[in-house]
């Protein structure tokens, strides 16, 4: 535990903008503002990760997942992690450090659909965004370039996009899965990934190791420590690592004064700032707002609606593994998306649920992962069905002969799915842990059931001799959305269309928490595009921005 010492007497120079979190959105905002001359201080509770820290180029690569590079902070228990408590049906996962979740992400690049921004108008559920797909279109293309995305343009299921690099090969697994979709007449498209198919920008060409989620040792996967921070630091951003934000204090006028944090020695410090931007993910930002309660905001900062922490969305997830007789070299990467399908991403009148799911094909990694998925799905077989001779038979059948359809569903924003402060458990700085309350709705259960059945059909059409169906993953897939939703109405949203809190005029939230509804697309492309849009707005309106009293 970090010792909490006395308050610092040192006075820090005031920043134009203090950003909390050096992950996906915080990196974009910090870099963009510094490029335009803002004095930016970014406070990050973790440190740097480099290829020297990964095990991805070692034979022990799969074992990295067991502990040190497990995406679940409750398992990883790094010094930067804070506990997630509660009995959530799906518990969020995250990585705390420079780059945030993009250190461990699979780099799947999937802009949302235009209809995802209008779920209430079109389908009578969820919430409309105050902005449209068109408002993000230009930013989608700019961040795709910054992230060296490789993809194939022209998917008729999406509006026109641009990618700076040609698509990755879809490999034998993608070809097998695509043949199944072709047989059924269903939509599929080669996957876009923020992985360089050739040397581009700050990235090297992918070497197909397939260890994307335990850290890319080749520097071929886009992560902000490569794509954004070198330029941001050279433009003058002060990045303070191993610093845990504790509170956003207010001045007498109710404006944010800066960020109070514990530095790596446990010293409490105040970083003054004219504007504060929260980018600590939908759990971390909500937690910090709740930690920042005051006489003016007794239920948490910027929480006059009571919505801070609520409407958590996580894209509940299941997998269908297709086992074929063919040699598919299924350990080979990248472990992004080989192909994806939007066949079932929209509301279908014949179904008993609304909205939909995105599917994507992935490899299975090494033998530990391959057999582990089989064993997790077949616990009912008992000891003799999983071990002994059965173990060898399973490996022989599955390893190198299978691909995985990931089924990623749109969960609707519901007030009871939320992040609150744990009344008892604390982190290593003595701050209350985040307690997560989350349960699947009947709509989501029906959606999962329908899509899993269709994915089994797709696997069989691809020639599968066996399918392995997982349960709903109890730990999430790193998609944490909602908790500080965006909207024009201050009575039913936390931030406005420019992601400024309705309650505090110089406080912004730019992470996935601002999603009023979540769609079914992997959210990073949208988080980055929206963060860039907000940064541009801050630049354009800098002379009108209200700030704390000096």
């Amino acid at each position: 535990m970090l010792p909490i010492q006395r308050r610092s007497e040192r006075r820090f120079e005031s920043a134009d903008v203090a950003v909390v979190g050096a992950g996906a959105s915080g990196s974009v905002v910090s870099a963009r503002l510094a490029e335009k001359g803002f004095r930016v201080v970014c406070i990050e509770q973790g440190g740097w990760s480099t290829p020297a820290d990964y095990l991805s180029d070692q034979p022990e690569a799969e074992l990295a997942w067991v502990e040190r590079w497990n995406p679940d902070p409750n398992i990883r228990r790094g010094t930067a992690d804070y506990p997630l408590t509660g009995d959530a049906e799906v518990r969020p996962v995250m990585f705390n450090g420079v780059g945030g979740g993009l250190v461990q992400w699979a780099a799947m690049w999937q802009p949302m659909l235009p209809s995802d921004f209008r779920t209430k108008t079109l389908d009578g559920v969820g919430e409309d965004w105050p902005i449209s797909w068109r408002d993000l279109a230009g930013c989608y293309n700019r961040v795709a370039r910054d992230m060296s995305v490789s993809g194939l343009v022209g998917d008729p299921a999406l509006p026109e996009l641009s990618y700076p690099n040609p698509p990755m090969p879809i490999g034998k697994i993608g070809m097998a899965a695509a043949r199944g979709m072709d047989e059924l007449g269903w939509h599929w498209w080669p996957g876009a990934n923020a992985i360089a198919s050739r040397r581009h920008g700050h990235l090297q060409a992918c070497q197909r190791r397939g260890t994307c989620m335990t850290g890319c040792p080749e520097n071929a996967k886009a992560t902000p420590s490569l794509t954004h921070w070198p330029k941001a630091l050279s433009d003058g951003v002060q990045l303070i690592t191993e610093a845990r934000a504790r509170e956003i204090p207010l001045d007498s006028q109710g404006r944010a004064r800066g960020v109070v944090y514990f530095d790596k020695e446990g010293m409490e410090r105040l970083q003054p700032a004219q504007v504060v931007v929260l980018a600590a993910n939908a759990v971390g930002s909500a937690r910090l707002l709740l930690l920042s309660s005051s006489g003016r905001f007794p239920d948490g900062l910027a929480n006059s609606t009571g919505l801070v922490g609520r409407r958590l969305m996580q894209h509940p997830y299941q997998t269908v593994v297709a086992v074929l007789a063919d040699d598919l070299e299924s350990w080979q990467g990248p472990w992004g998306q080989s192909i994806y399908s939007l066949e079932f991403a929209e509301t279908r009148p014949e179904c008993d649920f609304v909205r939909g799911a995105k599917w994507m094909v992935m490899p299975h990694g090494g033998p530990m992962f391959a057999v582990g998925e089989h064993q997790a799905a077949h616990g009912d077989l008992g000891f003799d069905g999983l071990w002994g001779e059965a173990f060898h038979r399973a490996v022989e059948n599955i390893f190198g002969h299978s691909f995985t359809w990931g089924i990623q569903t749109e969960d609707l924003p519901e007030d009871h799915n939320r992040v609150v402060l744990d009344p008892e458990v604390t982190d290593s700085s003595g701050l209350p842990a985040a307690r997560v309350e989350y349960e699947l709705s009947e709509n989501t259960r029906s959606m999962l059931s329908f899509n899993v059945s269709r994915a089994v059909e797709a696997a069989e059409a691809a020639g599968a001799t066996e399918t392995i169906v997982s349960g709903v993953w109890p730990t999430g897939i790193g998609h944490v959305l909602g908790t500080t939703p965006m909207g024009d109405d201050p009575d039913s949203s936390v931030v406005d269309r420019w992601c400024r809190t309705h309650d505090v005029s110089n406080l912004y939230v730019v992470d996935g928490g601002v999603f009023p509804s979540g769609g079914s697309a992997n959210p990073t492309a949208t988080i980055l595009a929206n963060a860039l849009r907000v940064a541009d707005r801050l630049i354009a309106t800098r002379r009108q921005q209200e700030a704390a009293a000096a």
Partner: protein
Amino acid sequence: MSADSLQRATLAKLADVLIPGSGKMPAASSAGVAGELLNRCLSAAPSLEEPLLALLEAAERCEHSAFARDLATRSPEDFAVLSTVVVGAYYLSEQVRDLIGYPGQVPSPLSIAGEPEYLPMLERVYERHEGYRSAE
């Protein structure tokens, strides 16, 4: 790794219950899971060491097959420790990797030249798709 020879012998017996020899595949003990591979496994995942040593101590005077089966039923968390170590160490073996045709997560430079084999299928996607749902 602080396992002594008795603990390693116990692990070898338990490991063979989970992964016995079969056809061309060696038993876990023959592959070396209780030797250097155990050290490497625990070096990569050190949090497994303490619970592993505890369950090995508990298993020392037991019939190993019955112990492993009982552990799987009675204490899934402890069994997960045992199975993770055994499977993880087993697939660190070069011999085992060779036998299943697994080169490891090694570099395999990609080629993006030439026309992808999937293009005819993709043209059919384009032809039959009605386009995205308008939301304007």
